[in-house]
């Protein structure tokens, strides 16, 4: 089968062209990193099917990063290259094009973001460009799918002009001479959104904007999440589902081993969706009515932030602080992802260049960045005791993030390279890709979390039944009760935290803890150990030795911080 490679600089809309060609749903973002693991799909080329590969964004074929090395490897396996070029920044993009033309592979150029050239005052002589490059050049607007049909028609006409190999300087000189012949730029004034773009990377205005963006994002996430819970999901469960479960409970005799697994404990004559802990009560209520609403609202807001191009600006603003933690500004992106789920966050630490940075970032995320599922439970349970307790949980995690980062920066050897990133212009997020991404992430949560949650509920009930938890609880009582000030049964929740942290926090609900104990429990649960899914990716990304080190740091930090909180509260 013919193998078509989509290649181009980062931020040129390559992934959007990919989804136009293949019709496959892919994650499209404004920042590089999401395409480091490449995507493949299929498209029809005349009568035949052809494979299309979305190669990670690359500026040059002389690799400077891991992603560019992958791109170079993939180039050797392809049959045709569709070189996606940003028409508004032809000069820099043509360097890669010329490198491709020196290779023995047919190329067709997609001149993307074509619509922006007009109002930016850029005039490109297409015929002359085709003639100088010796390959088809098709103007496209991937967002609206303009020019995609012509692009597909021209893929079979891809040509390889076999230009002789040049040195770097010769190649830049060649780019310059092409630009002189094909591009004419008329002067124009700054538009209002360019002024806004400049303001967002200046210390004062940028800082105010970042604060405004983060606070309003947080409020929107809360508002959407809370509204979904109070007006949609909670009423559904209470009014429609509760009577059904009660009928079933009666049919099953109102108690017994099987009843407790399926329905859970009946508390003062009623099922309690949080505390009953059966498959049909907590097993469904926790994921669907407590966690899912926050997953949806968090990923909606994150998707919008990604696709407007704000995140690289946040990276610039945070760079100075992140340097104190041994990271550079770009590490803020995996950290924000971690507020959704730690698994993609740990995977995203790959965008950081050095091993040292990846270790520090991954360790900090798994200790101090609670995932959306855990946060939803913190809001639900701790929030019921008063907003100030939620603030204490978040404040503690934030302080731990900073202090632990400073310590790791001192102790971990190696170097952290400097920030060097392109800042894409602000764009209105394309709703199609925002919603596609939201759906993929929500679907991912449901598929991965629901089986584990239901499994965990069954396992917990069985272990309870055989008294396993009592044995563990008695064994660990000195630490849990003495150091953390929690009832000894709380250890079961901490153990279950390895499966799912949201379920684990739910297990603290029936213990009638004081507000202070709930705070200690939430913080310890967040920091003590990653959930199994995060554990697996950490192991893969860090290796066994570093994973053990990270785990040691996690347990020590959780016990120290939990102990201190217990003394204070």
């Amino acid at each position, binding site marked *: 089968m013919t193998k078509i490679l989509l290649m181009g600089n980062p931020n040129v809309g390559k992934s959007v062209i990919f989804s136009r060609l293949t019709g496959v749903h892919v994650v499209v973002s404004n920042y590089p990193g999401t395409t480091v693991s490449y995507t493949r799909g299929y498209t029809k080329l005349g009568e035949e099917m052809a494979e299309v590969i979305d190669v990670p964004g690359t*500026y*040059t074929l*002389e690799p*400077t990063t891991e992603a560019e090395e992958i791109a170079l490897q993939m180039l050797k396996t392809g049959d045709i290259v569709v070189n996606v070029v940003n028409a*508004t*920044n032809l*000069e*820099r993009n043509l*360097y890669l094009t010329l490198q491709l033309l020196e290779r023995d592979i047919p190329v067709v150029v997609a001149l993307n973001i074509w619509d922006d050239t007009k109002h*930016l005052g850029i005039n490109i002589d297409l015929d002359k460009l085709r003639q100088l490059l010796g390959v088809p050049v098709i103007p496209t607007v991937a967002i609206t799918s303009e020019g995609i049909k012509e692009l597909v028609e021209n893929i079979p006409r891809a040509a390889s002009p076999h230009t002789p190999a040049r040195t*770097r300087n010769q190649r*830049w000189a060649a780019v310059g001479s092409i630009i002189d012949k094909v591009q004419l730029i008329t002067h124009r004034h700054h538009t209002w959104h360019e002024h806004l*773009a*400049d303001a967002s*990377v*200046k*210390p004062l205005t*940028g800082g105010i904007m970042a604060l405004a963006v983060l606070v309003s994002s947080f409020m929107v996430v809360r508002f959407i999440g809370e509204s979904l819970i109070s007006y949609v999901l909670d009423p559904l469960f209470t009014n429609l589902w509760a009577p059904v479960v009660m009928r079933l409970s009666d049919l099953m005799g109102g108690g017994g081993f099987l009843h407790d697994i399926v329905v859970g404990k009946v508390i003062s004559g009623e099922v309690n969706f949080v505390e009953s802990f059966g498959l049909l009560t907590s097993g469904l209520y926790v994921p669907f009515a407590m966690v899912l609403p926050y997953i949806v609202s968090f990923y909606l807001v994150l998707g919008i932030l990604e696709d407007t191009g704000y995140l*690289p600006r946040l*990276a*610039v*603003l945070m*760079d*100075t602080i992140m340097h104190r933690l041994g990271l*550079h*500004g770009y590490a803020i992106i995996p950290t924000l992802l971690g507020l959704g789920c730690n698994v993609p966050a740990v995977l995203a630490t790959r965008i950081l260049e050095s091993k040292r940075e990846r270790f520090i970032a991954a360790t900090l995320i798994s200790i101090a960045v609670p995932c959306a599922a855990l946060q939803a439970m913190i809001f639900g349970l701790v929030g019921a005791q008063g907003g100030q307790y939620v603030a204490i949980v978040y404040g503690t995690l934030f302080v731990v993030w900073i202090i632990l980062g400073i310590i790791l920066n001192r102790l971990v050897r190696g170097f952290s*390279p*400097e*920030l*060097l*990133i*392109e*800042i894409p*212009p602000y764009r209105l997020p394309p709703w199609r890709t925002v919603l596609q991404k939201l759906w993929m992430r929500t679907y991912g949560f449901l598929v991965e979390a629901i089986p584990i949650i239901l499994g965990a509920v069954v396992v917990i009930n069985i272990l309870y039944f055989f008294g396993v938890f009592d044995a563990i609880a008695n064994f660990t009582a000195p630490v849990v009760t003495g150091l953390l000030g929690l009832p000894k049964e709380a250890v079961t929740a901490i153990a279950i935290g390895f499966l799912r942290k949201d379920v684990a926090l739910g297990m603290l609900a029936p213990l009638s803890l004081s507000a202070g104990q709930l705070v200690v429990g939430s913080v310890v649960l967040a920091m003590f150990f990653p959930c199994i899914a995060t554990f697996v990716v950490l192991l893969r990304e860090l290796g066994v030795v570093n994973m053990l080190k990270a785990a040691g740091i996690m347990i020590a930090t959780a016990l120290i911080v939990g102990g201190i909180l217990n003394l204070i509260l």
Partner: protein
Amino acid sequence: MLDRKQITLARMHGGQSGTVIQIRGGHGMVNRLNALGIMPGKRITKISSMLMRGPVTIEVDRVQVAIGFGMANHVIVKLD
């Protein structure tokens, strides 16, 4: 010797424009900067810099690029 109109990118003020004349760094750094369009002969405008040795944002060929302070210290610019 730097003449008076030649300063490092890190020391430029926001809004100043100039031409890159030299990148004083190893092959890797030169390569990374070149890939983003920053090379001798290029006209650049400094947009801003963050406080406390934070990154420097410049515009080159209508694209904005943020450069860590240390790296910006190695880029020599001739002011207009």
